[in-house]
């Protein structure tokens, strides 16, 4: 493809930002899926890490082509979600959040201690295989699927169990299964996002998937809102762009960034896009 030089330059300069917007959008959706069933997970970063590491290894060690690696990248996180999902289904709210953080930290320790995974040095030299269109195609598909699921009995069941799981069960909602399903779906989304991220930037390290990124991913969904799948994506975009837009403030960047978030939440506590879906088709 040929672009005029100014566009080419622009795209090159902002390539990483453009990638990050899409990838973080996917992460925000992965958080959304969990929040939508009334659970609070801080394991999204860990799922992303599993996707990133497993896909990077497939590329670096097995030399698999990317069209195999990308779909395969969600396998490990999904299996992991299943494995932890079954026992942690008993937990809810902050208790689940802590359990998932704990598991994330355990994974981090594994990355740090296993030599194949590069330890603290991480994995570098990952070839750039991610194309912008892949990210955005997946993002659009994910939004569309979640939108449609939201407008169905599943969406209603999810909202109902978010408010009152016991009452939802009495309505015939298999709460356990939905919770598990949501966790696995979120792991798939996060895993794919991790693989895309790993193949967009040459390098991954264990600290990219710890506690702080987990909180950041949560904040995408909280800032945007969880009424519709667009809301968390919007939240992700704003939180990704803010630090870049504020570069000009140099030393005061962090202060402004924080203040903007504070004001946004104070004025729109239900998220920037607080609209809720009408959960009724036609």
């Amino acid at each position, binding site marked *: 493809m040929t672009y005029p030089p100014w566009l080419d330059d622009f795209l090159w300069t902002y390539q990483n930002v453009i990638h990050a917007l899409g990838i973080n959008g996917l992460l925000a959706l992965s958080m959304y899926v969990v929040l939508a069933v009334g659970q609070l997970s801080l394991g999204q970063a860990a799922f992303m890490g599993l996707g990133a590491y497993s896909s990077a290894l497939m590329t670096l060690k097995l030399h698999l082509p990317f069209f195999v690696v990308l779909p395969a990248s969600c396998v490990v996180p999904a299996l992991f979600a299943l494995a932890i999902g079954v026992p942690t289904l008993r937990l809810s709210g902050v208790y689940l959040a802590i359990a998932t953080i704990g598991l994330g930290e355990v994974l981090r320790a594994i990355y740090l201690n296993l030599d194949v995974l590069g330890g603290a040095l991480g994995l570098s030299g990952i070839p750039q295989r991610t194309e912008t269109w892949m990210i955005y195609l997946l993002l659009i598909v994910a939004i569309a*699927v979640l939108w*449609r*699921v939201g407008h*169905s*009995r*599943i969406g*209603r*069941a999810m*909202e*109902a169990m978010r*408010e*009152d799981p*016991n*009452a*939802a*069960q*009495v*309505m*015939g*909602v*298999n*709460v*356990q299964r939905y919770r598990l399903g949501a966790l696995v779906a979120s792991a798939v989304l996060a895993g794919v996002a991790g693989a895309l991220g790993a193949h967009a930037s040459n390098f991954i390290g264990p600290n990219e998937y710890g506690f702080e990124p987990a909180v950041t991913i949560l904040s995408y969904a909280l800032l945007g809102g969880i009424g519709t799948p667009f809301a968390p994506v919007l939240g992700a975009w704003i939180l990704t762009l803010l630090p870049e837009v504020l570069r000009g403030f140099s030393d005061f960047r962090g202060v402004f960034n924080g203040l903007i978030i504070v004001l946004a939440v104070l004025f729109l506590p239900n998220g920037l896009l607080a609209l*809720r879906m*009408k*959960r*009724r*088709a*036609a």
Partner: protein
Amino acid sequence: MTLLSTAGLTRKFAGLVAVDGVDMAVEVGSVHAVIGPNGAGKTTLFNLISGLVEPTSGSIDFNGNDISRLPVHARAGLGMARSFQNIRIFSAMTVLENVLTGLHSTITAGVGAIVLRLPGFHRAEKTAVERARMALELVGLSSKSELLAGALPYGDQRRLEIARAMAAHPRLLLLDEPAAGMNPAETSSLAALVRRIRDAGTTVLLVEHDMGFVMDISDAVTVLNFGRRIFHGPPGAIRQEPAVIEAYLGKKMAARLAARKDGQKAIAP
């Protein structure tokens, strides 16, 4: 024919026996009332039947299956629905959506059909919406179907609970104090509704303290006291039953029940 029966059903809470060896049989097509003093174990009995509380011992048979260990949602799948004494509607959802949630197990579209918007999906949703609207119509909430449920006044929230539970035409409908918070006029229209539900083929098991209401609509009455069954029989018989008068009705109420003309609120002292 019995639809639901319990045998030796018992539930203890830290030293307190809330339900104590209750044997009960609910006939298909009947309206069966459970009454008893506050704290007698009526709601706990409902919780046991719907699965929100596990029995300490005893068994529950529903339509020929032992359901005592079945998960809550599976019981709903078998055709059981209930309302709650302490209202538990989904207050952030609209009235219509609340009722649609009650229809959850009757909508069969799977994830594939939902995502691909296959015809089956549209059909299922359409029927569900129709049924939901019908249920709302019956309880008189049609005009409020798009309001957020949390904004409804108390009495309407109760009606919504009932609509949500009956929308799926369950085999068995459990109503926990459906008339609480309704005035006598509203109560009698509720009685008419319950009769209609029964006539449409749903068996109704209900708890209620409004004795006029109970006498009006029930085919059989079970009285609990301290978790134990102290009476079972036709409603007309309770006003003569000394144990029931002593524990629950009081002499005045018993006299009033004996003297009442039908349809009159019987509760005033």
